[in-house]
């Protein structure tokens, strides 16, 4: 492995990790604040991708510039967050916060399965591909290998912006502080007048929108077909569990670790590449069951 190969593997790993992080971000945010593992997050990712393809296809067929795809991705993500995330939290999850975790998991899993079938009903089983946004940005050649600007530069940039933005939001804005307070201790927050219901609703919408944004950003790079949500939820869960549920910065680091691990495996030992994310998860959890950055939580009795 010489320097060139090393740097190439690094670039590929970062590009892959960026996308995985954006999706895992929503999942870990929801868990951190609401203590619910939202299995339906995978479907929100998939529906974000489908919605982007549908919107982009429609507007580009009217003859508008491909650069319009980027704002449309944000629109698709926000639509997913509000139209899907909102009702899921308000109608379903609100009623089961006090119930055992197993029940919560089953409910979100049921929502996941329903949404998978909804995707099939609405968009069918044929693969879709809408890559004009990616092609509009062009390519860049490094060490004789051509990368798309989209994957090498845009996705990591967006991931970084989201990470820093979310940190700033949670620590420096009033709303963020309300969310942090509710996360720390829900009863104490409610006793000083914070409306925990509204906080939870907002958090879920933001988390769902982030999942949809992940799908929207992924859509120009890959075929959109039923089942993509299932794959993504498994991988996101591996990232989130390894980092420690609720740890945002940790998720960034773990996504990077898993992304780099996978891309180095493809360069050095391709057969193992499929296993790498889960090997990392198993090794970390064996040593630190609460995740790399998680802290053992004290249970309130």
């Amino acid at each position, binding site marked *: 492995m010489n320097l060139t190969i090393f740097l190439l593997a690094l670039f590929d790993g970062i590009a892959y990790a960026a996308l995985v992080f954006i999706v895992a971000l929503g999942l870990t945010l929801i868990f951190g604040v609401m203590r619910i593992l939202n299995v339906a997050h995978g479907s929100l990712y998939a529906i974000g991708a489908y919605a982007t393809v549908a919107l982009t296809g429609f507007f580009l067929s009217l003859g508008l510039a491909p650069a319009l795809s980027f704002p449309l991705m944000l629109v698709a993500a926000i639509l997913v967050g509000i139209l899907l995330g909102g009702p899921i939290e308000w109608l379903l999850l609100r009623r089961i916060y006090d119930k055992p975790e197993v029940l919560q998991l089953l409910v979100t899993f049921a929502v996941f399965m329903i949404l998978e079938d909804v995707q099939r009903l609405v968009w069918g089983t*044929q*693969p879709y591909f809408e*890559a004009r946004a990616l092609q509009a940005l062009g390519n860049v050649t490094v060490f004789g290998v*051509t990368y*798309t600007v989209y994957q090498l530069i845009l996705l990591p940039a967006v991931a970084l912006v989201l990470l820093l933005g979310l940190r700033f939001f949670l620590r420096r804005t009033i709303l963020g502080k309300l969310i942090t307070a509710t996360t720390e201790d829900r009863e104490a927050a409610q006793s000083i007048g914070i409306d925990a219901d509204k906080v939870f609703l907002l958090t879920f919408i933001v988390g769902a929108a982030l999942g949809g944004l992940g799908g929207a950003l992924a859509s120009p790079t890959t075929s959109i077909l*039923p089942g993509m949500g299932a794959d993504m939820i498994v991988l996101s869960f591996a990232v989130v569990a390894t980092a420690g549920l609720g740890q945002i910065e940790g998720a960034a680091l773990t996504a990077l670790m898993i992304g780099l691990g996978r891309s180095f495996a*493809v360069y050095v030992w391709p057969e193992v590449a*499929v296993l790498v994310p889960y090997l990392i998860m198993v090794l970390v959890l064996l040593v630190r069951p609460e995740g790399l950055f998680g802290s053992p939580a004290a249970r309130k009795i």
Partner: protein
Amino acid sequence: MKTLFVTTALCATLPMTALAAEKPETLKIGMTTFLTGPASVFGVPAQEAAKIIVENINAEGGINGVPLEVSFIDEGAGAEALTSEYRRLVESEGVEVMFASISSGNCQTLAPLAEDLQVPNFMWDCGTQKIFEEQDYEYVFRTQANATPEMLAAVIYLLKTKPDFKTIAVVNQDYAWGRDSWNIFSTALKAMKPDVEVVGEFFPKFGAPDFSTEISRLQALRPDVILSTSWGGDLDTFVQQASQRGLTNSSTFVLPLAESSFERLGASLPAGHIVGARGDHYFLHPERREDADFKAFMEEYESRTGQVSVYPVFHTSQAFAALQAAYSKAIEENGVDWPSEEQLLAAMEGLEFQGLGRPVKIREDHQGVEDQMMGTTVQNGDYPFATMENIMIFDGDDITTPVGEESIEWVSGLDASFIDTVAVDSFEN
């Protein structure tokens, strides 16, 4: 005395029933296909084709006056559901002939079940060559080729069109088909071109949404040829991503299943790459496209589905053609109104039939012998997607593993002179 006489007379007529079966009201067929999941890109076109074919057959009076009725089982529901549905159709619904399946794994499960249930079973799409090589079956037949002639055709076309290439890499899906097809292809290639260098073997997981790292690696390795037997969304993603990053300019791709992705890939599949169709299946088939029945079917299929026909459609047509031919042959040879099961099975031996492609015949081990088409892509503007030129159709007899031999053993015993022994018809487009 009278009862004894009547009973004796009745018993004397019983042997007559062995000579002919009662003509049923409808001939029930069961077909397994993927209606959900990634392979539904094959399964749904096959289902549409089956519906059209059954309608056409019934419009002409059915088989000897008996109309057909086809019911579908979704392979996407999983092996357990599949076997219980299969059993239910045969035992409770009175299905006479089953068509199964798309997935090689399902074929391997259902072949012994068909023997057990004693129902004629046509393997209409699955590719594994192992079923008839490992065991003999009485009730199971295959109305198409298998992986061995399909991969051999790809190797021969490659060696004929690019004899001087040096390096090859493979990017296949990590499951039975991806592994087995590479096994056959590489064994054949190394036997016929011993100096070839395999510079990379990648098996990304089935359904992988991203091939970026593999593509970077391939750009660094710069192989002359890249093989991929992927299909569906995986192939679409791989070709799209490779095309975006210019890999399709620096290497020649060999894509034996690309015909089924032509329309979806549009302009992303550039000219100059080698493609196959798992048989002589192509909506612009050079020998058949002017035939009235071919044209009529293509138009009907396109107007119903909005898409051009792909190879599963052709495979479905072959299964139904085999069905019709078998019943006609059994009825004629035995001089009956409707054949018994033994007569039908006997008619299947050495049967010749023709679906939408060239004629196919069933040989003594029940394997179908189907000619194989390969071509090179061209973007000439006739369609908003790639079409084929420099088409070669290889004779199935020459490239199918001989009866009683095992594919890998037979293929590894070949050498470069084999290429000239294969009968081939060439067409410009």
